[in-house]
Protein backbone atom coordinates (compact mmCIF):
# COMPACT_ATOMS: atom_id res chain seq x y z
CA UNK A 1 0.00 0.00 0.00
CA UNK A 2 1.34 3.40 -0.95
CA UNK A 3 1.02 6.35 1.44
CA UNK A 4 1.81 9.78 0.04
CA UNK A 5 1.66 13.25 1.53
CA UNK A 6 3.42 16.52 2.18
CA UNK A 7 5.99 17.17 4.88
CA UNK A 8 4.38 18.69 7.98
CA UNK A 9 6.60 21.36 9.53
CA UNK A 10 9.55 19.61 7.94
CA UNK A 11 8.57 16.21 9.28
CA UNK A 12 7.00 13.06 7.85
CA UNK A 13 4.12 12.02 10.08
CA UNK A 14 2.05 8.89 9.42
CA UNK A 15 -1.17 8.28 11.36
CA UNK A 16 -1.66 4.72 12.54
CA UNK A 17 -4.07 2.77 14.67
CA UNK A 18 -2.34 0.67 17.31
CA UNK A 19 -3.61 -2.60 18.77
CA UNK A 20 -1.67 -4.38 21.50
CA UNK A 21 -2.80 -8.00 21.70
CA UNK A 22 -1.34 -8.94 25.08
CA UNK A 23 -2.63 -5.86 26.93
CA UNK A 24 -5.93 -5.68 25.03
CA UNK A 25 -5.32 -1.98 24.39
CA UNK A 26 -5.77 0.16 21.32
CA UNK A 27 -5.28 3.76 20.27
CA UNK A 28 -4.20 6.08 17.47
CA UNK A 29 -1.09 8.18 17.03
CA UNK A 30 1.03 10.00 14.51
CA UNK A 31 4.32 8.24 13.91
CA UNK A 32 7.34 10.29 12.91
CA UNK A 33 9.31 8.58 10.16
CA UNK A 34 12.85 8.91 11.51
CA UNK A 35 15.76 7.44 9.58
CA UNK A 36 18.02 8.50 12.48
CA UNK A 37 16.35 6.08 14.87
CA UNK A 38 17.40 2.44 14.72
CA UNK A 39 14.17 1.29 16.38
CA UNK A 40 10.44 2.00 16.19
CA UNK A 41 8.42 2.69 19.32
CA UNK A 42 5.34 4.12 20.98
CA UNK A 43 6.23 7.36 22.70
CA UNK A 44 5.23 8.50 26.19
CA UNK A 45 2.14 10.60 25.39
CA UNK A 46 0.66 7.75 23.36
CA UNK A 47 1.50 5.17 26.02
CA UNK A 48 -0.20 7.29 28.68
CA UNK A 49 -3.34 8.01 26.66
CA UNK A 50 -3.69 4.33 25.73
CA UNK A 51 -3.34 3.33 29.36
CA UNK A 52 -0.07 1.39 29.08
CA UNK A 53 1.24 0.76 32.59
CA UNK A 54 5.05 0.75 32.35
CA UNK A 55 5.28 -1.28 35.55
CA UNK A 56 3.46 -4.13 33.83
CA UNK A 57 5.66 -4.39 30.74
CA UNK A 58 9.23 -5.58 30.47
CA UNK A 59 12.02 -3.04 31.00
CA UNK A 60 14.57 -3.87 28.33
CA UNK A 61 17.25 -1.26 28.06
CA UNK A 62 18.25 2.38 27.95
CA UNK A 63 18.15 4.18 24.65
CA UNK A 64 20.57 7.05 24.03
CA UNK A 65 19.40 10.10 22.15
CA UNK A 66 20.14 13.77 21.78
CA UNK A 67 18.88 15.46 24.94
CA UNK A 68 19.08 12.52 27.26
CA UNK A 69 18.23 8.91 27.73
CA UNK A 70 15.01 6.99 27.58
CA UNK A 71 13.90 3.82 29.26
CA UNK A 72 12.90 1.25 26.66
CA UNK A 73 10.14 -1.23 27.49
CA UNK A 74 9.15 -4.26 25.47
CA UNK A 75 5.48 -5.09 24.84
CA UNK A 76 5.15 -8.84 24.80
CA UNK A 77 3.41 -10.49 21.84
CA UNK A 78 2.14 -8.66 18.80
CA UNK A 79 1.47 -4.96 18.41
CA UNK A 80 -0.43 -4.24 15.21
CA UNK A 81 -0.05 -0.95 13.35
CA UNK A 82 -2.87 -0.20 10.89
CA UNK A 83 -2.20 2.34 8.16
CA UNK A 84 -4.74 3.87 5.76
CA UNK A 85 -4.46 5.38 2.31
CA UNK A 86 -7.71 6.37 0.64
CA UNK A 87 -9.93 3.28 0.86
CA UNK A 88 -7.01 0.92 1.42
CA UNK A 89 -5.80 -0.26 4.81
CA UNK A 90 -2.82 -2.36 5.77
CA UNK A 91 -2.02 -3.81 9.17
CA UNK A 92 1.58 -4.60 10.03
CA UNK A 93 2.13 -6.90 13.02
CA UNK A 94 5.30 -6.24 15.02
CA UNK A 95 6.48 -8.71 17.62
CA UNK A 96 7.78 -7.35 20.96
CA UNK A 97 7.21 -3.72 19.94
CA UNK A 98 8.77 -1.03 22.10
CA UNK A 99 7.40 1.74 24.33
CA UNK A 100 9.62 4.55 25.59
CA UNK A 101 9.68 6.64 28.77
CA UNK A 102 11.95 9.69 28.74
CA UNK A 103 14.43 11.03 31.27
CA UNK A 104 15.84 14.34 30.11
CA UNK A 105 19.22 15.93 30.80
CA UNK A 106 19.07 19.06 32.95
CA UNK A 107 20.14 21.31 30.07
CA UNK A 108 17.13 20.36 27.92
CA UNK A 109 14.68 23.24 28.02
CA UNK A 110 11.13 22.73 29.19
CA UNK A 111 9.54 23.41 25.80
CA UNK A 112 11.89 20.99 24.05
CA UNK A 113 11.00 18.30 26.61
CA UNK A 114 7.32 18.87 26.00
CA UNK A 115 7.68 18.68 22.22
CA UNK A 116 9.48 15.35 22.57
CA UNK A 117 6.91 14.00 25.04
CA UNK A 118 4.08 14.94 22.65
CA UNK A 119 5.49 12.89 19.74
CA UNK A 120 3.11 10.00 19.17
CA UNK A 121 5.65 7.43 18.11
CA UNK A 122 8.63 6.75 15.90
CA UNK A 123 8.93 4.60 12.81
CA UNK A 124 12.65 3.88 12.77
CA UNK A 125 14.99 2.01 10.50
CA UNK A 126 13.92 -1.42 11.78
CA UNK A 127 10.62 -0.83 9.94
CA UNK A 128 11.72 1.60 7.21
CA UNK A 129 14.17 -0.95 5.79
CA UNK A 130 11.18 -3.13 4.89
CA UNK A 131 9.45 -0.27 3.07
CA UNK A 132 10.14 1.63 -0.12
CA UNK A 133 10.62 5.25 0.94
CA UNK A 134 11.22 8.23 -1.33
CA UNK A 135 10.93 11.99 -1.12
CA UNK A 136 10.48 14.53 -3.88
CA UNK A 137 10.37 18.24 -3.16
CA UNK A 138 7.97 18.75 -0.25
CA UNK A 139 6.29 15.34 -0.63
CA UNK A 140 7.02 11.82 0.49
CA UNK A 141 5.99 8.39 -0.75
CA UNK A 142 6.04 5.41 1.58
CA UNK A 143 5.25 1.97 0.17
CA UNK A 144 4.42 -0.21 3.16
Amino acid at each position, binding site marked *: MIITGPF*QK*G*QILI*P*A*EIKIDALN*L*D*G*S*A*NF*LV*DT*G*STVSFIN*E*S*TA*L*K*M*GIDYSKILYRDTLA*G*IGGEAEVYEIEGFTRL*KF*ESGQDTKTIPRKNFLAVKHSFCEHVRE*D*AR*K*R*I*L*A*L*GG*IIGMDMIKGFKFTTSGQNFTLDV
Partner: protein
Amino acid sequence: MALKEFREDKQYLDADYERLKTEHANEFVVIHSKQVVASGANLETVLSEAREKIGDNLKHSVVEYLGTRKVEMVV
Protein backbone atom coordinates in the same frame (compact mmCIF):
# COMPACT_ATOMS: atom_id res chain seq x y z
CA MET B 1 -13.38 4.36 12.12
CA ALA B 2 -11.16 5.32 15.03
CA LEU B 3 -8.28 6.18 12.73
CA LYS B 4 -10.59 8.24 10.49
CA GLU B 5 -11.69 10.30 13.51
CA PHE B 6 -8.08 10.70 14.63
CA ARG B 7 -7.12 11.98 11.17
CA GLU B 8 -10.06 14.41 11.17
CA ASP B 9 -9.05 15.78 14.57
CA LYS B 10 -5.47 16.17 13.34
CA GLN B 11 -6.76 18.02 10.25
CA TYR B 12 -8.76 20.30 12.54
CA LEU B 13 -5.61 21.06 14.53
CA ASP B 14 -3.54 21.73 11.39
CA ALA B 15 -6.21 23.96 9.83
CA ASP B 16 -6.62 26.09 12.97
CA TYR B 17 -3.08 25.74 14.30
CA GLU B 18 -2.21 29.43 14.68
CA ARG B 19 -5.43 30.31 16.52
CA LEU B 20 -5.12 27.29 18.82
CA LYS B 21 -1.46 28.09 19.47
CA THR B 22 -2.44 31.61 20.53
CA GLU B 23 -5.24 30.39 22.79
CA HIS B 24 -3.18 27.55 24.30
CA ALA B 25 0.34 28.94 24.10
CA ASN B 26 2.94 26.55 25.53
CA GLU B 27 0.33 24.04 26.59
CA PHE B 28 -0.50 20.45 25.80
CA VAL B 29 -3.91 20.11 24.19
CA VAL B 30 -6.17 17.10 23.72
CA ILE B 31 -8.48 17.30 20.71
CA HIS B 32 -11.52 15.08 20.30
CA SER B 33 -14.42 15.55 17.84
CA LYS B 34 -12.81 18.76 16.56
CA GLN B 35 -12.78 20.40 20.00
CA VAL B 36 -10.08 21.05 22.58
CA VAL B 37 -11.28 18.98 25.53
CA ALA B 38 -8.34 19.62 27.87
CA SER B 39 -5.25 21.81 27.98
CA GLY B 40 -2.46 22.72 30.36
CA ALA B 41 1.25 22.67 31.07
CA ASN B 42 1.53 19.18 32.57
CA LEU B 43 0.98 16.23 30.25
CA GLU B 44 -0.28 13.76 32.86
CA THR B 45 -2.69 16.29 34.37
CA VAL B 46 -4.06 17.19 30.93
CA LEU B 47 -4.56 13.53 30.03
CA SER B 48 -6.34 12.88 33.35
CA GLU B 49 -8.64 15.84 32.77
CA ALA B 50 -9.37 14.65 29.22
CA ARG B 51 -10.07 11.11 30.44
CA GLU B 52 -12.64 12.46 32.89
CA LYS B 53 -14.39 14.32 30.07
CA ILE B 54 -14.23 11.89 27.14
CA GLY B 55 -13.47 8.59 28.84
CA ASP B 56 -12.14 5.84 26.61
CA ASN B 57 -12.20 8.12 23.54
CA LEU B 58 -8.95 9.60 24.83
CA LYS B 59 -6.97 6.76 23.29
CA HIS B 60 -7.96 7.88 19.77
CA SER B 61 -7.70 11.63 20.44
CA VAL B 62 -4.94 13.95 19.23
CA VAL B 63 -2.39 15.06 21.83
CA GLU B 64 -0.17 17.97 20.83
CA TYR B 65 2.12 20.50 22.45
CA LEU B 66 1.58 24.05 21.15
CA GLY B 67 4.96 25.62 21.82
CA THR B 68 5.55 29.21 20.75
CA ARG B 69 9.34 29.00 20.68
CA LYS B 70 10.77 27.78 17.40
CA VAL B 71 12.65 24.57 18.08
CA GLU B 72 14.37 22.52 15.41
CA MET B 73 13.80 18.86 16.19
CA VAL B 74 16.71 16.44 16.14
CA VAL B 75 15.56 13.11 17.50
